[in-house]
């Protein structure tokens, strides 16, 4: 499944590199903007800077699209590597945080920032994968796991038969696993 997504991403980026800034660019935006924006908010602590991170990442993705080699990695790792470096630039720009308190530089630019970026991305990918599920399935999984209810309690809460809760959970975990793989997160 995720191989399909990789191939599609690579095709989209190749078309962007060839100058098609219509549908392929829009499709890449729709696939990545959510996680890029979330990463920006988490790393930089500011929605304005997060927006700038998204814009600048796509500009630089376009500029460097010709350098992308699908043999060496996914579009996703290519794009987030670009984003991380832009985040460092944004973080270090004094004018972008005139009154910001001294926050650990570590999180954005430090030696272990790669790990923390990866961790943040996993969290964002799980959120996005959950949000991509049909409402009924997402609701059941959230109530079961995040709210720690039993299947019976979920059935009561939603006013549906227990069998429905079990079926939604069954299809939900499968769909979630696939949605995660499409985002390069493996259970």
């Amino acid at each position: 499944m995720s191989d399909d997504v990789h191939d599609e991403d690579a095709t989209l980026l190749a078309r962007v590199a060839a100058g098609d800034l219509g549908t392929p660019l829009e499709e890449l935006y729709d696939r990545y903007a959510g996680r890029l924006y979330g990463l920006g908010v988490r790393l930089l602590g500011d929605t304005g800077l997060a927006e700038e991170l998204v814009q600048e990442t796509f500009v630089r993705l376009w500029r460097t699209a010709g350098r992308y080699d699908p043999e060496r990695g996914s579009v996703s790792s290519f794009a987030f590597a670009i984003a991380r470096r832009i985040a460092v630039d944004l973080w270090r720009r004094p004018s972008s945080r005139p009154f910001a308190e001294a926050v650990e530089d570590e999180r954005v630019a430090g030696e272990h920032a790669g790990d923390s970026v990866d961790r943040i991305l996993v969290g964002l990918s799980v959120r996005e994968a959950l949000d991509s599920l049909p409402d009924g399935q997402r609701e059941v999984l959230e109530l079961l796991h995040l709210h720690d209810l039993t299947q019976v309690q979920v059935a009561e809460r939603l006013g549906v038969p227990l069998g429905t809760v079990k079926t939604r959970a069954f299809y939900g975990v499968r769909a979630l696993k696939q949605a995660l793989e499409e985002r390069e997160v493996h259970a």
Partner: protein
Amino acid sequence: MPDNGVPHVEVAGYALGKLDEDETVSFEEHLAECAECRRELEELRGLPELLGRAAPPVRVPNELRARTLAAVRQAAEDATVDGELPEQPTSWPELVPAPAEEAPAATGQRRPGPVSARLIALSRRPFLAAAVAAALVVLLAIPASMFLNRPATTELALVSPTGGPASGTVRVTQTDGGREFDVRIQGLKPPGQGKLYELWAVGAADTPDKPQRVSLGTFNVPASGKVRLHAFTAASASVFARVGVTEEPQNGNPAKEGPAVLRPGN
């Protein structure tokens, strides 16, 4: 397939640790005989831990999509004008592990190669086809040495937002250090008592509630109404593309508070 008579469907509840005792016993009996459920369970092994890591929901501003797409298309258009191209296929290993010293994209990637090579590269790109014809005309008229080494300079106009006499021009030069601004203003009254003027690089997303702007410095205007300024910034040329001037109180607050006195003209 899930079926109320067959407990395959319980695999999800089991993986998430949500079966009660009776259900667990009954599912484990089923599991011993069902290779499909064992495989499924194996595949779901890491899922509970991942679910626990879900980030809170994030809402991406709707208008960011149009703005981002416009920024990329604008960068492509600017590149057409400047003869700057997206990078040609090479390899990208240096992009990933390298530290953050990457030069601002617009300048660091400019390759003043032979004119003929640039034209060949241009002609590979259908969306630049029209620009190639225009570039040829320009090339014929300008000595090649000028073309190859010229810094990318553009000129912007400043006008009064109220139709007043104040106006200006800004020559913007892209250098290795960022953008340099050579600003000439005329017809602008000296700032009011306790106030000064501030020059800004402004993003397309700038609103009074959500500023997207970087200060390029503050200045005064003498009684002649004329002033010439030099400023520079490394802030992204594609994001902070516009230039404007506001009148600000001298209160030490770096945020924009005052009204615009010069804004981009056409």
